[in-house]
């Protein structure tokens, strides 16, 4: 009888939890849309610049979030470009090669790295900049590159961890199969284990992408600014949507600017959703291509 009651109540509580979460999300969304709807115009993105001119980089955009959108995309691409290869390689090492003392040591290191607050990562990025600035006579300042490196270190443990667990949880039978056919360890990894866990690895990548898209504390210290226009190189400062929203929330001068903040929040949500959908699509294609082509 006890068991039955427990099972029932857990099921009911779970549903309640689900509704709670979705309800708060809906509340947030309706509030954002309600407040930001009025600002969702072309001018929110491009200000008073002609959109085509802005897209062709003919004119700078002022009072629009176009540079912030582009900056966010650059940030994501840049940091993933660093984090994915290093993270996956590290994860492979952890799952397939690392044993004994070394493994528990590195495991702990990654646990800690995953727990390091983002603002400390940002702080580290800033101090790194200052250090480089002093050694290279003012050549290096806070910029896109520094932000990408900092963000990459922030999400690195996520990718390492998911890669590691994805590889470690491959069915032992599958794991033994390729060696039985004469595969070397590297062959087993590249031809069986990785393709097999690629979709799991991708969920780590998705998580990491989301984290890069949303983080404010790191970029606040390493190069995101209120106005900068489009970055022309990775050594430029840049605008980014989360920072823009934070900035508006503390600096807005009137209801119009506030609505712009809400509009930016909506755009950022759309951007994240778009990114997610495309990553999911790549995830699907990739595992099909790797295994069945």
């Amino acid at each position, binding site marked *: 009888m006890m068991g039955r009651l427990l099972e029932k109540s857990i099921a009911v509580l779970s549903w309640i939890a689900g509704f709670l979460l979705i309800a708060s999300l809906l509340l947030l969304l309706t509030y954002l849309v309600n407040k930001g709807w009025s600002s969702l115009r072309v001018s929110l993105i491009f200000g008073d610049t002609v959109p085509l001119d802005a897209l062709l980089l003919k004119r700078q955009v002022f009072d629009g979030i176009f540079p912030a959108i582009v900056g966010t995309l650059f940030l994501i691409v840049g940091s993933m470009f660093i984090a994915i290869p290093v993270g996956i390689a590290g994860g492979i090492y952890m799952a397939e090669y690392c044993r004994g003392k070394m493994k528990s040591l590195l495991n702990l290191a990654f646990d800690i790295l995953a727990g390091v607050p983002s603002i400390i990562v940002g702080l580290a990025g800033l101090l790194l900049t200052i250090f480089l600035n002093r050694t290279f006579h003012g050549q290096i300042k806070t910029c896109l590159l520094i932000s990408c490196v900092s963000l990459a270190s922030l999400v690195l443990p996520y990718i390492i961890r998911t890669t590691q667990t994805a590889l470690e949880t491959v069915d032992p039978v599958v794991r033994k199969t390729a060696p039985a056919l004469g595969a070397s360890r590297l062959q087993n990894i590249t031809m069986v284990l990785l393709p097999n866990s690629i979709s799991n690895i991708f969920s780590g990548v998705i998580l990491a992408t989301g984290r890069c898209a949303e983080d404010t504390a790191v970029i606040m210290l390493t190069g995101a600014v209120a106005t900068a226009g489009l970055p022309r190189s990775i050594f430029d400062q840049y605008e980014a949507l989360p920072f823009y929203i934070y900035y508006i929330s503390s600096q807005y001068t009137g209801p119009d600017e506030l609505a712009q903040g809400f509009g930016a929040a909506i755009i950022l949500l759309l951007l994240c959703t778009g990114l997610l959908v495309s990553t999911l699509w790549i995830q699907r294609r990739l595992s099909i291509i790797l*295994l069945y082509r």
Partner: protein
Amino acid sequence: MDTATTVNNTAVQVSTVDVPVKIYTQSLCFYYRRQKVLHDISLQLPANQITAITGPSGSGKSTFLMVLNRLWEEVEGCDISGKVTMELAGHFKNIHDPTLPVCELRRKVAMVFQQPNPLPMSIYKNIAFPLRLAHVNDKKRIKENVEFVLRQVCLWDEVKDRLGDDGRLLSGGQQQRLCLARALVLNPEVLLLDEPTSSLDPEASNAIEELLLTLKSQCTLVMVSHYQDQIQRIADFHIKVLNGRFSTGLDWRGDCNQNS
């Protein structure tokens, strides 16, 4: 490599027949974590013959096969002692010899598992897989080989229209034949079979038995089987296992039931 010189060209003396030897084991013991699973096995397995291993379930038959191609190394918490010597490409070698890479060994000593284990990829890719591992890149040759072995195991007609399907979607028996085909594609010298017909119907089973008999000329077969009648039909030698202890001598079945 002292053993290699002394045992080379030796043959097993069974009853009155001399048979060349392919594999020696010397005081082989095997442990799963705390537990001793194989006890001090010293055996000779004859070349180009079918040796059947029987014994109650849990007595260590599968484990013994895994020792022969060093596959146990992929399982955590195992340990081994003793020595296994095998004739490969004409020379006797200690299979743990560092000059013999384990991949090489496993390509020469193919294995079909008790439970079929198709890889999570298409049927075609499953079979082409060992070729890919051995860096065979000639597309046409791969294709021919795949078709050849699929015909060998009588699976070609059933799957020729769905070579792109996931190998794991096949039925149990189809999977078993798929795995056999995959083991054959590299022309191994030794073929280890763990109950190769356990999920097959009598007809398919017969076909496989026929196949095994034809394979004798090109490789040495070691087969775990539960079916007395199957052993009667195709095995040349018979080893009985009980609780990790192997019957020392080979039971020569050639005189009462000579197939080859």
